[in-house]
Each structure stands twice: as C-alpha cells, then as structure tokens.
C-alpha cells in the first residue's frame, strides 16, 4: 500500500480516502474474499460455523453475498477466550489488547506487525481528518495498558509526527502542570475526564494559560450537548472517533473537521445496518444496529460482528472531500435501550435534554416503575442553582419545562424529580444510571 507522507495537507492517505465509490466497492469485495478465506482456512471455529450455515468462501462473488454469512456476537469471542479465534500463529502476534471486561472474561484482540501498521494508519487518517498536525503536542490521557485507546492514538499521532506525551490517566494536577509547561495543543481523553480536567484547570487558575486547541475524544459516548459544554468550558474543538476491541480497537471511524458524522475507514471495515430484532439488512439511511466486517485483519479476523451500537449510514459526499461512507454518532446501544410504554428510549436522549437545561447539573438517574400495570419513568436531576429558591412556583416551572422538553424528545411523559446536589451517584467507569424496578 502506497503511503503518502503527511506534509500539511488534510489527508493521511488521500488516495484511499477519496477513491470513487465503485473503486471502494471493488476493493471491499477483494478484501472480503481474502478475509472469509482466512477465517475459513485458519480458524476451525469459523469453518465449523460457516459449514453449518452452508457457506463456503467461493460463494462470495459480490458484496451482497456477505448477507449469506451468519452474524457473529460477543458470545463467539467469549467461547473462544483467549486466543481461539486467532488466524495467525502465535509467534506472529506482536501485541495483545483486551476489552475492559466489566462482565466476565475480557475480549482479547491480537495484532501482527502488519495489523499494527494498519491500525496506526487507520487512526492516523482519523486524527489528521480531525485536525491534528505535525506541529501538535499531543497529551494522551487515556489509560495505557490493555485498553486499545491509548496505544491506537499513540501510534497514530507518532506517525503524523506530533510530539506525543504518553502521560496516561490519573494524577490530574500533574496533567494540568504538564499541559501548561509543555504547551499541549491536543488532548486525548474520555469526554468526562476532559470535563474534569477543564474544571481543575480553572480551579488552579491556569485555564487561560493553556494552549489546547483540539480534543480527540473516545471510549465513551459524547452527546452533541455534552460536546458543546466542553467546548464552552475550555475553548477547544472536540471530535469523536469510534472503534471496538473486537474490531481491533479504535480506528474504525472518526469525524473530520466538518463534523457531519464519522467517516468509516471503509476500505478496511465493511459496514451494514441491520434490524436488531430480525437481523435483516436495512437500506442506507435507516437507523439500526451497526454490523462490521473488518477486511484487512491478519491475526484477528471476524465477519459481520454485531456491535450493538445504534446508528445509520449515509454515503453522500462530504465537504471535506472524503468519499468514505459516514455513520451518525452512536445514539445508543441495543442493550441499554429501554422500552417504556412500548416506546424505545435511549438514555442518551435524556442526557441531551438535561445538558441544555439551566439550573440543573449534568448528572441524572432514571427510575422505572410499574404502576397499575403501566410503565412509569422518573428522571432525577440535581438542582445546582439557588436562584429559583425565591418561590416554589419557579421551581415548579423548571420541573415543568424539563418534563415538557423530555416529552417532546422521547415521545412519552415522565416525572421529573429535583434532588439536592451531589446526591446522584458519580461513576468513574461505566455509569449505571438506570434503576429498573418494573419486575421487582
């Protein structure tokens, strides 16, 4: 693969990022065949799975033939823990990463030298598209370790030629000191950690001295409203990128400077959107579950992996010049979708309302109950601003406004409860914001 050196232009691999749709599809077909062959011939579990489905690699003649392949899920990966699905001999594998494994055994991803090179390039495309340049000083405040995020960004930013500061997460006062002393321009962090650092910088009285201009955020969802708040707090541009340990980590897709969706590195990842209930492939533009087939992985190939993330795809051209298909920011996950009174509700929708309302804090808790056989949703938010304490009617009006806004976004009615500040539990890792009492 010919790689263009980065020299101040907007692309890392311009040819790949701007090729015609026909050429992309041609390349995808070739690589899909290669991947399915690799799965079939090198991974006994996949051979068995494909045999049972009555599919052989030579049946893949067009891209649409991908629909003949069965879907894969986290279950396949769990069953084959840790190395059962590797398609390369162990001696060719040079690096391992895993998911956080909050429930049970983690997902294990392996990389050959070529995989690492590919990963670095995919991520380099995303960081360049997001606006990172060789002159940047990039502070990586993701935790280094088995988690893919820190290394993925590290390899990419180093390829681009940035000065990489691999500080890892934690020790926040020191983070701010380094940021100020080194003149950090790019911050790599989770959105919530970035919010925390920005508040700390203010408390330490150095917020104005920082040279930050770009935030490359990932690993947890950042709603547009949360992003607006971060941008207001610390005056930086925030971009999102997307990936999963199961698919080789970050580097699947990311936002360009236009920030109109995340460009998928489509020559290496083939996306589909399915109906999560039936598994049926949906037409472009419809919202459903994202299914990805990596097309170039040596060590850890997989096909039609169900991400559980809900989004939609659109291939119309982007102003940035990239022809790569785009996905929306993930609106939710099939496993955190709530069904309330028969309506699908994602916590992210509720979050988007809460972030825009004055007088209340960003933390919330959702309580679901069954009252006389009917579902009810209570949204608890913290009242952080005392200015409405003048009159009961002002607080009641605030509750009413929040409730009306939620009703218009969710399509269902809910109760809103104001609680005192710092009473809603804070989470450092994955937040557990839902208390479902309907079956208790």
């Amino acid at each position, binding site marked *: 693969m010919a790689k263009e050196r980065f020299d101040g232009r907007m692309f890392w691999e311009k040819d790949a990022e701007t090729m015609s749709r026909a050429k992309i599809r041609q390349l995808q077909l070739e690589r899909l065949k290669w991947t399915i062959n690799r799965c079939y011939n090198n991974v006994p579990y996949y051979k068995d799975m494909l045999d049972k489905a009555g599919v052989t690699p030579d049946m893949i003649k067009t891209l649409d033939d991908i629909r003949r392949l069965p879907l894969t899920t986290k279950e396949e990966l769990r069953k084959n823990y840790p190395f059962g699905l590797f398609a390369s001999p162990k001696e060719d594998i040079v690096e391992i990463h895993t998911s956080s494994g909050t429930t049970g055994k983690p997902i294990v991803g392996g990389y050959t030298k070529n995989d690492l090179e590919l990963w670095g390039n995919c991520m380099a495309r995303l960081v360049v598209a997001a606006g990172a340049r060789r002159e940047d000083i990039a502070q990586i405040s993701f935790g280094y370790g088995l988690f893919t995020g820190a290394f993925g960004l590290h390899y990419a930013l180093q390829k681009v030629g940035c000065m990489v500061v691999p500080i890892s997460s934690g020790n926040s006062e020191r983070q701010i000191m380094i940021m100020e002393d080194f003149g950090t321009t790019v911050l790599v962090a989770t959105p919530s950690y970035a919010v925390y650092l920005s508040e700390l910088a203010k408390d330490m009285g150095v917020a104005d001295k920082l040279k930050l201009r770009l935030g490359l955020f990932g690993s947890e969802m950042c709603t547009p409203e949360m992003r607006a708040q971060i941008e207001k707090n610390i005056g930086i541009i925030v971009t999102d990128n997307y990936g999963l340990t199961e698919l080789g980590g970050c580097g699947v897709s990311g936002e360009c400077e236009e920030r109109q969706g995340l460009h998928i590195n489509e020559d290496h990842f083939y996306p589909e959107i399915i109906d999560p209930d039936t598994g049926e492939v949906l037409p472009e533009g419809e919202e459903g579950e994202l299914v990805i087939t990596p097309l170039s992985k040596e060590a850890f190939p997989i096909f039609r992996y169900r991400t559980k993330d809900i989004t939609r795809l659109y291939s119309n051209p982007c102003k940035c010049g990239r022809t790569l298909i785009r996905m929306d920011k993930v609106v939710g996950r099939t496993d955190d979708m709530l069904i309330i009174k028969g309506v699908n509700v994602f916590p992210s929708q509720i979050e988007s309302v809460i972030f825009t309302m004055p007088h209340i804090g960003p933390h919330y808790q959702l309580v679901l109950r069954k009252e006389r056989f009917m579902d009810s949703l209570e949204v608890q938010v913290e*009242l*952080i*601003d*005392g*200015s409405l*304490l*003048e*009159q*009961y009617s002002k*607080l009641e009006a605030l*509750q009413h406004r929040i409730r009306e806004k939620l009703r218009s976004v969710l399509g269902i009615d809910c109760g809103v*409860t*104001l*609680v*005192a*500040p*710092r*009473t809603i539990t804070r989470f450092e890792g994955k937040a557990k914001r839902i208390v479902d009492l309907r079956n208790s």
Partner: protein
Amino acid sequence: MSVKQISVFVENRAGSLLDITTRLAERNINIRAVSLADTTRFGILRLIVDKVDECEKALREDGFTVSITNVLVVRLRDEPGGLSDAVRVLTENGFNIDYIYAFISHAVNDACVIFRVGDIEFAEKILTENGFKLFSDDDIMKI
C-alpha cells in the same frame, strides 16, 4: 432595613432536613425563625439565623443549594389585630405578599413577623412611615 433570609433546597427524602439542622448545630448557628411548607416533591427551607454569612458559607461548602433573599422582619404588638394592622397597610398600598412566617423573641416582648414582598424598599418605607419598627441584620444577631 431588610434582613437576609437563607433559603435551602430540601428534597423529599427521609433525613434531608436532619442533614441541614445537624450542620447548623455543629457550627453553633442559632435559628431565630424557620419555615418549611408542606409539598409533595420538594421543600424550600427558609431560615433567619444569628450568623447569616457563616451559615450560608457552611451550607454551600456542604453542597446544599442555597440562596439569600432579603425579607422584612416587622415588630408587631403581641395582641389581637397586631398582624392585621401591618397586612392592611401593605394591602392598601398594593403589595402582593409572597409569604409570611413569625416568631416571638424573648428579648423583645413584641411578635416578629417576616414578610416577603416584591418591592422591598418601598414596603420598608411605607411600613416605617406608618410607625412600624423593622429589624436589621444586627438586631437579629443580638436578640
């Protein structure tokens, strides 16, 4: 000559009022007057205390949602018709009274009534012109 009143948000949960009163007790803050209305979802605790600045600071540090409102504390004859006289003056001058609550002090023999009205400076002027005595923050600290 208005007096600073502290309003604290109280959620509808067992122990939430105790949280606040415990803090005040620990900091040796004496409550002169208190009011908390009965509502289903949340309450606003209104307090007149001896050390208002210290009280506000302490509650904020402990993470309570707090605001300071100026109110009038009017001394009234502790006998039938005492409150009515003051309310009549305010009403005849077009005031809308948001809320009142009262206390009796051991230091003065009068009844003390806290009034929250819209245009507080004008209300103060009217009441003074009609011969009512009003407390200042200093008076509250001393009684």
